[in-house]
């Protein structure tokens, strides 16, 4: 038996097929992964993401700590409630984890980190926090429910009360607000509008049922993966890990080079890599032939060398197979993917593949 979130019994009751996910017993789907995927793109669905870890950082020098800890610049967070996506790097520039940082107040920042990396993250953050006198508190008392889809906001108001409307209606993406015991953020992992709601673990089942009664469908990890892949969002452990840098992972946009004096961990290694030229990059692939692209399939790009698929699946929205792949930096155009011993043609494309329910493919 793995670790279980406060919603485990509710998932089982709602017909979930449970699988092991990084040591957690989590719902893969509640019947049909495809239908769940479409539900989020067309209406609204909810995900139990309580396996992820909320870490509160407190102290007078927390901002200073984060300037050093994160590759993105926490000084972009100028007003309470702002959120920032960032990588946390080791000195070699390898990605320890990707996370979201929320600015609560000048003495309190909140991080949300991945489930599978929580132990090493906490050890690393704890080590870095000590010289800054910052307190590192994992919030095991919190659960997290993501409600995503074009109808997500309206369904949340219908389920949890119109009182939330005024506080959250005008929130732009990557903002958050505390309402009573709820911490409601306009972040997500699907490419749709919606909320990620952090709440007391003891309120999770009640809240989940209220949302369900309002017509929000429960969505499993299977659809979560195809939704995030269509949205062109990296998955830690698949698309990047400690052996690659953000520059090789399609995440340079999250590295804040300015101001040059900000000495974040991994900076020297990234600058060196950038000066020498980044040999590999992450690209989107669309399969032109029949079949399905899968993680770890090898590919050959004409004249410039070999690559590997880091995340491949079937895109329910596009009705064809798509992938993220790490390829030689110069690769463009078409490539050949080894699918179970046969070569199939795929096209290198810009991603995201899908945003707000619409194809982004040209």
């Amino acid at each position, binding site marked *: 038996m793995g670790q279980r979130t406060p919603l485990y019994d509710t998932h089982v009751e709602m017909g979930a097929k449970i699988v092991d996910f990084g040591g957690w017993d989590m719902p893969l*789907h509640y019947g*049909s992964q495809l239908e769940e995927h479409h539900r989020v793109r067309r209406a609204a669905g909810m995900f139990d993401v309580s396996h992820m870890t909320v870490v509160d950082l407190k102290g007078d020098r927390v901002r200073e700590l984060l300037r050093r800890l994160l590759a993105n610049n926490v000084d972009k967070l100028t007003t309470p409630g702002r959120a920032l996506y960032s990588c946390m790097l080791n000195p070699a520039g390898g990605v320890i984890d990707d996370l979201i940082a929320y600015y609560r107040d000048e003495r309190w920042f909140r991080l949300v980190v991945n489930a599978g990396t929580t132990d090493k993250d906490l050890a690393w953050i704890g080590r870095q926090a000590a010289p800054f006198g910052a307190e590192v508190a994992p919030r095991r008392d919190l659960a997290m429910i993501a409600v995503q889809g074009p109808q997500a906001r309206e369904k949340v108001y219908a389920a949890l009360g119109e009182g939330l409307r005024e506080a959250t209606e005008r929130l732009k993406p990557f903002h958050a607000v505390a309402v009573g015991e709820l911490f409601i953020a306009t972040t997500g992992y699907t490419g749709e509008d919606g909320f990620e709601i952090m709440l007391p673990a003891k309120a999770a089942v009640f809240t989940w049922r209220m949302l369900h009664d309002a017509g929000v469908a429960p969505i499993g990890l299977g659809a979560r993966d195809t939704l995030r892949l269509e949205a062109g969002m990296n998955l830690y452990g698949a698309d990047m890990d400690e052996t690659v840098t953000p520059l090789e992972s399609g995440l340079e946009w999250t590295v804040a080079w300015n101001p040059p004096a900000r000495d974040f961990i991994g900076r020297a290694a990234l600058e060196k890599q950038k000066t020498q030229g980044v040999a590999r990059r992450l690209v989107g692939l669309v399969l032109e032939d029949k*079949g*399905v692209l*899968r993680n770890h399939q090898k590919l050959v790009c004409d004249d410039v060398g070999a690559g590997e698929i880091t995340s491949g699946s079937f895109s329910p929205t596009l009705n064809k*197979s798509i992938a993220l792949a790490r390829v030689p930096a110069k690769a463009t155009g078409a490539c050949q993917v080894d699918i*179970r011993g046969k070569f199939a043609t795929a096209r290198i494309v810009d991603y995201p593949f899908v945003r707000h329910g619409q194809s982004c493919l040209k």
Partner: protein
Amino acid sequence: MSKIPAELKYAKTHEWAKPMPDGSITVGISDHAQELLGDMVFVELPQVGAEFAAGQECAVVESVKAASDVYAPVAGKVVEVNAAVAAAPEKMNKDPYGDGWMFRLQPKSAGDVSALLDAKGYAALVAAEKH
């Protein structure tokens, strides 16, 4: 609990075979197999006229989760394929023993078909796999 119709024969690799009046068999994958694989998104069927040995890979199904080979339950020659299932793979999830059939095979020997598992034998195999 997955459905295991009593009138069909089954291979250990989770294909079902339905004996037809003309001596051929219709082949698909079991309800248990489609449940394990999840939503089907791609089916690669054999060519009509192709001959296979018993247990030889003759088709591929890809679900949202994984690719999986489909094996010839007995030795024989493909006489018909279900083009509708290639166009709409979800038929294999919705009706694995009906609209979700994959191909028809003319067995080399009728005795091979009767040697396949019956519903009871297949149910025991499925139950054993769950432990």
